[in-house]
């Protein structure tokens, strides 16, 4: 009996080692043909969030940056693609319900493609993070609505990780033209689309008006946060009026309000916080 157990144990360890080894080494590292195949796989499976050229879309980080928040080695990347990143929009392979799950081979091809697209040198932060922090919590009024590291307002999205998870272009666009692409809010596990930060004006039966953002909504109820950060749980058929717009509650920061340099400083601050 003992012998049988030992054999089983040895077998188990051996198999475990094999599996571990298989997950550790990219069999296609540096293979241009695999990178090309990986590019097609990337377009099908990853481009929705990370952009067609892996430069990042509005949702996912720029993967051409050599330094990545969640992954360093190819093995890390394999794990992230296979299992997703809990607490972020990055899903596990094959779980988004629409596309086809990728084989291990296809995942390695994608990693090979991403490596082939990486810029060799890390991008130097272009602004002054310390000054950006002052602006964020001070004159630029960002923290009235946005929280970073537990400090700030609640009306807009929490921004601690945004510097790592969004491209520079997407961040600039969301400050200069916040209504272009509304930020994602609550994601429900079985629902196809996340709630977006839509602006709302509701008037109750007794004439009380409230303006704010939707935390969540269905055909019969809406949960909103007003501009004083109060939460209102409303039944739509009991309201006098209910209006929603895709005009962001965030004001447009034109260059006349916030100079390019000051914006660079704020981005440098967000990137430095996000990198932690």
């Amino acid at each position, binding site marked *: 009996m003992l012998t049988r157990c030992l054999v089983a144990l040895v077998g188990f360890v051996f198999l475990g080692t094999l599996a571990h080894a298989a997950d550790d080494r990219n069999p296609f590292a540096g293979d241009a043909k695999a990178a090309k*195949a990986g590019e*097609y796989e990337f377009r099908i499976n990853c*481009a929705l969030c990370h952009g067609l050229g892996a430069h990042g879309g509005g949702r996912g980080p720029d993967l051409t940056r050599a330094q990545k928040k969640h992954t360093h080695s190819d093995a890390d990347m394999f794990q992230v693609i296979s299992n997703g990143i809990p607490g972020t929009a990055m899903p596990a392979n094959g779980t988004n319900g629409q596309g*086809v799950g990728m084989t291990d081979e296809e995942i390695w091809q994608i990693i090979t493609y991403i490596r082939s697209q990486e810029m060799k040198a890390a991008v130097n932060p272009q602004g002054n993070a310390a000054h950006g922090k002052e602006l964020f919590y001070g004159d630029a009024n960002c923290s009235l609505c946005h929280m970073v590291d537990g400090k700030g307002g609640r009306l807009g999205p929490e921004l601690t990780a945004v510097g790592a998870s969004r491209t520079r272009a997407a961040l600039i666009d969301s400050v200069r033209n916040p209504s272009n692409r509304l930020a994602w809010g609550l994601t429900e596990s*079985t629902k196809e689309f996340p709630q977006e930060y839509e602006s709302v004006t509701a008037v109750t039966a007794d004439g009380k008006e409230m303006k704010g953002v939707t935390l969540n909504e269905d055909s019969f109820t809406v949960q909103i946060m007003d501009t004083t950060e109060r939460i209102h749980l409303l039944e739509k058929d009991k309201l006098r009026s209910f209006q929603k717009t895709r005009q962001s509650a965030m004001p447009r920061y034109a260059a006349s309000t916030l100079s390019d340099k000051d914006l660079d400083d704020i981005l440098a601050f967000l990137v430095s916080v996000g990198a932690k």
Partner: protein
Amino acid sequence: MRRRAKTQGLKAIIFCILNAALEGSLFHGWSKSAVVAGLIALSITIIPAGAQVTFERLVNSAKEPQNWMTYSGDYSGKRFSGLNQINKTNAHTMVAKWVYQTGATGKLETSPLAVDGILYATAQDDRAFALDARTGRPIWMYQRQVPSDIRPCCGHVNRGLAILADKVFLGTLDAHVIALDAKTGNVVWDATAADYRTGHSFTVAPLVVKNLIVIGISGGEYGVRGFIDAYDADTGERKWRLYTVPGPGEPGHDTWEGDSWKVGGAPAWNTGTYDPTTNQIFWPTGNPSPSNRGEGRAGDNLYSNSLLALNADTGKMNWYFQFTKHDEHDWDATQVPVMVDASGKHLIAQANRNGFFYVLDRTNGKLISATAYGKQTWSDTKDAEGRPIAKKEASPTLEGHTVCPGALGTTNFMAPTYDAQTGLFYVTARDQCDIFSTAPQPYEAGHAFYGSAYFPSEEAKPYLGFLKAIDPTTGEVKWKFQHTSPTWSGVLSTAGGLVFSGDAEGNFIAFDASSGKPLWHFQMGGAVYAPPMAFAVDGKEYVAIAAGSAVYAFGLP
């Protein structure tokens, strides 16, 4: 083995109790008839579990509206219930009667069957189960050991069972067709249709016709060569197979460039309908492969995105109609084809994924009308037959550009309904446009074979979801209800003047079938990807639907 012993033990106990009861030792001094009457009065209802469902019962299903014995509730695909106990006057009082938690994760797309007080349904990873339809308590559960390396395109889903005699039939994710004993869930036979490692799978609810189990393959994302099969219900022996992509020498073969037919797709992953008067099966087919890249498969690509009329006994094709020729947008035409009789004409109607509502003469497959029922930008002309034809600019490009509807379509697998009382066809619809960009890739067996990437176009936001009521005689949308976001729920209509559907936010909603006004709703706590159905037990009507990970039943208080 253990299950059988347990079942036999249970049988023995029930037999003893019943015998004792009938012999009078439990009910001393009572007459046998009084005991039986008493048992009924005490609601110890003894239902002949898995009662014999005959082909005749399926043909005449309208005579027993308390049962729901096929995917669409009847052979015509109407998903209409003749029950009217729940109706416009009392729907607002509906309550949840029971909830059955499947324990599965992912999307539930199942359409339950209800036969003589028992509900039969499926869940992810090829689970099947039978429930006491009054209480939701399980009678048996089956779960297949699905191979770990299956990669079905769109989740480990299943859309339901078929039933005949004392068996229920399940198409599995690893491309088998299996028969389960309706009383125990034990496997009676197991037939292999294809190799799952090359991307073949079943997600469809089979259709019983006579003694045949008719079923269509999935795998349009893997470059399978599509087919529709029929198996002997008693033995599992395959009786016929119709390849939906014709081989060399067969009519339609010349609509494929070179060897592209070998990986041509045209799967058949949604349940068709059947006309007993002509013994014809109407079965819809899906996209040509690769789904979003036409280069390399020049031609119409028959019989992808078509409706096929087949002789039920032989699988021989009587006629076909192709909705989207040479599709490059993944617009499977797999939506349920609904048989509608209007103005003395025998029609078949389909709200197609490509955004058009088609009405055909089902005696010959001739197109009668094609009318847009949602936002579409791909076609502004029709051919001589009246079929919408794609603009050249609608083809995907390397840089990507926006086309409406998106790849998910104006509608998709969500089952529609037709209510002869209102004369309206109800369907879940979405307005969403996608950016289609090419991603040329070589075919490799068992690997995804899209040829293109697509994703929702940000400029086309917001994406809208609707329940639309269409007059099939004109194609006109008579009313629409806008959901908060697009939903994947199917639709049911009932003789109570109601239409039922669910939403992505987890609501189950009863609508006035004439006006579209919501009369009642219930928050189920999970998005809906399944169609509703209705049944009755002990004279009480229920409406059931799957949402989140559970099956819900509703009724009057």
